[in-house]
Structure formats: C-alpha cells, structure tokens
C-alpha cells in the first residue's frame, strides 16, 4: 500500500504545483491582453483625467508582481476579487454560475458515462456484428454533428413540436429539484450525444485489447458466459484507460459547454466568462480561468489516482 500512497501523494503535489503554474500563466496572459479596462468602462468619450483616476481607484497602476500576490492571497481566503464592470463580488457571482454548470454537467455525466460504458461492453460482446456496427455508426454520427445543430434539433422536436421540455433552460435560485431537472434535460442530452462516442469507443478499444490476454482464454475454458467474461475479467483490467478518457470528457462537460449554454440560454460559467471577456473584466476572466484549470487538474488527478488504485501490483506489492 505504501507504494500506491507514495504515488498518489506525488500526483497530488504535482497537481498543486501545476495549479500554481497555471495561476501565473493566467495572470500573465490577462496582463498581455490588449485593451484597457478603464477605457471600456468609461467609453470612448472619457477624458484622460477620469481614465487615470479610475485606473488608480482600480489599483491598475501597482506593479504586476504586487497585484499577482494580492490576487493569490485573496484566492487563499476565498475572495476572487471584485468585478470591475458591476462592482459585485466575483466569488458570489461565480458561486451561483458554477453551481448551475456543475448541475448540468452532473446530469450529463450521469446520463453519458454509464451509457457509454454499457454501449462499449455491448459492442465488445457483439464485436463486428450488427449491434457493434450500429452503436459505432450512431455514436460517430452524433459526434460528427456540430453541437449547436443537435441542440436546435432537440429544441425543435422535443420543445416546439412535442412540447415535452422547455425550449429555454431557465433556472433560478430556490427552484425545485424536479423543475430544475426538467429544465436541463435538453442541454444535458445534447452534451451526452457529444461525449458519448469518444468514451464508448475508448471503452471498446481498451476492453478488446484486454480480450487478447491469455487469462480471457482461461475464463472462456472455465465455461463462463460471454458477458460475464467481459464484465468480470476484461473490464477490471481496462479501468485505467477508460477512466482517463471519462475524466477528460467530464472536464469537457464543465469547461467546454459555452455553445450549449448559449443555445439554451443557460446561466452557467461559460456564458459568464464569454460576457466578461468581451467587457475586458480582468478579475472575472482570471477567476473563471483559475476555476476551470482547477477542475481540469482535479479531474485528471482523480483519473491518475483511480489508475494507481486499479493496479493490483501497486495496491498489493510483493
């Protein structure tokens, strides 16, 4: 166990180090961005004096290093700064938005991950026969269509024609869970269709690779049923590659959903970020970038840890 623990501790510290590196990159990146916040707040007709006053007020004249550490110290205490454009606390605004994004991502993940793995297992069981070909074809077709097309198609069919689900995914604070769920069904389905193919094909490939092993033959010569061999003998040895691709897709569900949020007018992080990039609201952009990076690094960390734990050689050293 000690070896596994050591590896996990190593991965966690690397993750933290990586987050630091990313925070520097984000900060430097936002400094290089063209444009002037004061200018964009006050507009083209602002006088040089008022611009200078606003800059001083916003602390934009301090040296970059000072501002970086002030920012970092703020983050450590949970204060992500104040939005330049609205004067609101970024932490509060992000908290709400992040909650919405995570809710949508969770619903999409709960729908897509088991479906993808199950479809992968079925494809392996009926390898090169019609169920396999149908699953591959259908998932490939879904990934080939742009997400805005799928989104609008779903809206047209299930929102407009059939009227089963709302066409706009509006959520608000204190909304009952059932209503909230119904509101996000269509965007969640859109996301599921987008990520399904990747996860399903990886599951299929990883398990087929394991199916070449001699111990699969052993299982077959024990008289085990075909699906039991796949489930019990192949899947546990394919966990590592499958988890990696699942985590990548989960990360995408959280940080890459801008288009879907825009289609369904869903108040999530993506839209919030895009809005504030347009307004050159640096603290918001920085905070969003950092949150996304943390989620990405965190999910990949989970994938690494699961990989380590799924390896019996590391779990049970000689």
């Amino acid at each position, binding site marked *: 166990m000690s070896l596994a623990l050591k590896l996990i501790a190593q991965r966690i510290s690397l993750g933290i180090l990586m987050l630091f590196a990313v925070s520097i990159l984000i900060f430097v990146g936002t400094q290089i961005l063209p444009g002037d916040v004061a200018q964009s707040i006050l507009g083209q007709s602002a006088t040089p004096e008022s611009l200078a006053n606003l800059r001083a007020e916003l602390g934009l004249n301090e040296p970059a290093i000072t501002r970086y550490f002030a920012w970092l110290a703020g983050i450590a205490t949970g204060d992500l700064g104040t939005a330049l454009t609205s004067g609101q606390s970024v932490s509060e605004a992000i908290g709400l938005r992040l909650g919405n994004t995570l809710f949508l991502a969770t619903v999409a993940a709960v729908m897509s991950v088991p479906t993808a793995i199950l479809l992968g297992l079925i494809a392996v069981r009926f390898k090169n026969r019609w169920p396999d070909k149908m699953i591959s074809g259908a998932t490939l077709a879904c990934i080939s269509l742009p997400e805005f097309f799928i989104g609008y198609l779903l809206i047209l069919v299930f929102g407009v024609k059939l009227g089963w689900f709302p066409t706009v995914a509006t959520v608000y604070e204190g909304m009952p869970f059932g209503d909230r769920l119904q509101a996000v069904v269509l965007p969640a389905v859109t996301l599921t269709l987008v990520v399904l193919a990747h996860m399903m094909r990886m599951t299929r490939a990883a398990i087929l690779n394991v199916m070449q092993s*001699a*111990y699969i*033959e052993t299982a*077959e*010569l024990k*008289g085990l049923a075909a699906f039991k061999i796949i489930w019990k003998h192949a899947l546990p040895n394919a966990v590592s590659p499958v988890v990696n691709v699942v985590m990548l897709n989960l990360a995408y569900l959280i940080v890459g959903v801008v288009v879907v949020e825009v289609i369904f007018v869903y108040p999530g992080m993506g839209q919030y970020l895009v809005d504030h990039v347009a307004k050159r609201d640096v603290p918001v952009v920085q905070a969003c970038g950092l949150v996304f990076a943390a989620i990405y690094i965190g999910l990949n960390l989970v994938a690494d840890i699961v990989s380590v734990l799924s390896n019996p*050689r590391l779990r*049970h050293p*000689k």
Partner: protein
Amino acid sequence: MTADAFLDIRNLKIGVSVREPGKPARDITIVESVSTTLAKGKVLGLIGESGAGKSTIGLSSLAYGRGGVEITGGEVFVNGRDILTLNRQGLNQLRGREVCYVSQSAAAGFNPAHRLIDQVIEATLEHGLATKAEAEARAVDLFKALSLPDPENIGSRYPHQVSGGQLQRVMTAMALCPQPDLIVFDEPTTALDVTTQIDVLAAIKNAIRLTGVAALYITHDLAVVAQVADEIMVLRNGKKVEHGSTQQIIEAPQEDYTKALVSVRSITHAAQDQTETPLISMQNIVAGYGKGPKVLHDVSVDIFAGQTLAVVGESGSGKSTLARVLTGLLPASSGQITFEGRTLTPVQANRPVDDLRDIQMIYQMADTAMNPRQTVATIIGRPLEFYFGVKGKERDKQVAALLEKIELPADTAKRYPAELSGGQKQRVCIARALAANPKVIICDEVTSALDPLVADGILKLLLDLQARENVAYLFITHDIATVRAIADSIAVMHLGKLARYGSKSDVLAPPFDDYTDLLLSSVPEMKIGWLEGVTAARKMEGAGN
C-alpha cells in the same frame, strides 16, 4: 469405443484459413485424421515438435480453437456425446466442469486483477458444484496436495505475488477444483526452470494419482512425459506417428521419427585441454542494472581460443548479464576484462572497431534479431561491408561462401527471414556472426527456441565451425544436455555467483556442491520411474539431514 473410454476422438481434422492481402484465402490443415480414446483415470501424453498439432488436439477436447483455428471434421465424444455439435451454452456446461485446462504460462493465464482463490473456485461456483465455503475448503486441500507453501492463505494473494512455479501449481489446483473427468495440461512445465520443473511435475503427478482424474499431457519433452503418462502418442505435422504405452515408446520405439526423438542429443564432443594463456579473461566482475542490486558478484572466468565456455544457470542467475558485460553493453562496476593480454575498454561505444569485430553475438530469438525487410544477402553482407569494406560482386561471393559454411543453398541469399524456418534463421544469424571473422562468438540460448532435432543440427554446425575456424564460444544456456554436448569448460552460475567452474570433466564429476547436484539431478532422464527415484532420494536426504 470401450465402456470406460469417456474421451473418444475420431478422425479429427483441424484447419486454419489464412488470408493474405491480395491473395485468395488458403486453407491449411493442422491436424489430419487423428483418432484416440482415453479411459477414466489414465494419462495420455501428446508429444511432438512445434507445428505437430498437439495443443490443437488438446484444445479440441474442449471444442476450442485458438485464433482462427477451426475443427473441420471428425467427432469428439466426451462422456458419450459429440461435443463438436454443442452450442455455446452446451459448451459452457462442458468447459470447466467435465474438462479443464492448464496452460503453459500460468503467469499470463491468471487474471492480474483478482485474488488467486477467487479464480481457483470460479468454475466450481459458476457450475453450481459446491457452495463457496465448500469450494474454498476444497481449494485449500488441493493447495496442500500440490505442496504449496502456506496453503491456508496463499489463495488470498494476487498472481504477481507468487512465483512462477507456485503459480503453475495453483493453476493445476484451479483445474482440479471442479473435479472434472479430464484435464488438458498444455506444456505446464516448459516455461519453468529445471529445478522448479521437477517439483511441479511431482506435484502434478501426485494430484493426478490422488484425484484419479484423466489427463492429456502435452509437451515437446519426451523425458518429461515419460514420467507422468501411461500412454504416449507421437505426432508430427498434424499426423499420428506412433501410439503406444509409455514403456514401448521409450524402450522400443517402432518408427524412425520416434527413434530420433528418443536418441536426441547424440552429439559428443571431447573436451580440449586448456592452453597456457586464455583468449579472454574476465576477472572479479561485479555488475548490476541502474541503482538496483548487483546482478553479478565477483565472477571470474576464462575463455580459451577455439574452445567453448558454457555458462549454465537458471533464469535470474546472471548468465546473460555476464555476456552483456563482455560485449560492453553493460559496463562492469568493478573488475576487468583482458583480451589477448591487454585490457578491454569496459564501454562498448569506446572500443576500437577491431575489438567490436572480434566479439560477435548470436541471440535466442533469430526472428527478432534480423530486420524482416532485408534479404539474407543484405543481413550477412552488412558485417562484410562494415568491417572489411567489401562491396558488390566480391561481397556476393563471400556471402555465398558463408552460406555454404552454414549448409544452406546459395539461393537463400535472395530470400527474406520470413521465408525461412526457425533453424534456417538461426543459421543465417550464425553466418552473420561469422562474417565478421571474430575470435569469440557469444551464443545466448541459441537453441532454446528450437525443436530438439533442429537444435541438434545447429549444435553440430557450431562444433564443425569451431574446428574449422578456431573460434571460441561463450555459450549461455539453461540446458545441461546441451552443455554436455559441446562444452570444453563450464561455469555453473547461481544467484549471480559462480557455483562451480572448471573443465567439463571436473565440473560434471562428483563430488558436487549442493547447487550443481540439485541442478544435475533435476534434469529429466528418458527413463520411466526417474521422477519417483529422484524425489525419493531427496526425501531420504532431507530426512537424513
């Protein structure tokens, strides 16, 4: 079909369909019209070289074809029903219940993700033959019968936590656990070291006797099968050559092919006396990989011009590492190598070209030691070009001369490695080594991957070449019979140290040190009752101590 014959194979035909791009599919016959029966509690040995179809026949009693192999004709009756007509559900009832299988590599045959006990009792539970507690108790009894250490707890380990020999015994327990009528043993001891093989063999034989299970025992080693089988069927190229009682096959073989198998290793080589000064002297070599523990501890050996030093030992004894030190691929951390009286640079990259030329190497796997996209002429011609600058017609002439030396036809030069047989490939590798006109050739298990008769041919060739070219061999092997056949001096290695070293007559004559004694007495002899003799003698010794 006799009343007690529960396995009855009739006119079995097995083939495989080979599809090469651009060509119509070809059907290749692997097994042609083989018939046999097996009574309850009897052991039938299937013996033959690679490609004889012995594994394929063994697996047919589970109605299983490996890869694209298909049973194309005949009938296989198990307990009175033709299993070739069963559907998947019917087969699942047969497999793991009436017939079980033990594969060559237990290390690959066990699922790394599950504990041993869960895999051992899996088939028993799947077929509802016992409750979990009963099955576990049965497994522990089997572990005891197979003399596994700590039988109560070994099951809770994972496959990577036990040794290869133990794993092979656990796999035997796994096959015995559902109390089948028949077990197919597919080369169960081939991958093991000789001192481990004898223990596993004794355990398997004991378990067969205790449980009364019938067995098909597949191997290429006649001496091994003679210890466990009641009857032996000799196979060659998918056809039955001879079938008889073990005694008849060993003591009075009828067919020429069987006679050749029984009398294999007929080569004798009178050891030469050592000359005054050795060609190569390796002194106090200590070496290891990276920061890991040292693999060689203070090893000193001499190689004499035109003679063979055989380095013999089991896996992990450091014999290949010794070769790597000599080639300079792994510089020794201390000790030195003297070559023709001067010190040899430890690192290969720093050695002058002539030193590189003088030390050549032949590998175990001729397949992977040659570029598959080069013709034999290019492969053999490369050292001629590199060391001597020989090109064009002159090169072709020398390649032809080399091919003659290794007894291959001249048109081999135009062929690719894939078009050659295993023995021919190894001959090409020998020619490549010879092309450099070396003073010493390192032969690393060069006959281990070959069938006995082919290996014999290679050894004869090596001895002839030595007599003619006066080249020395550092011959690495785990096979004592090979050592007897060709060595002038012998180094027995054990755990990175020299257990015994000297001329052939000294090393192979008693009194022995403990390890050499164990090693020599573990080599199976083509004699019925050898196994019992050795195990009994060892028990006596153990009791005496």
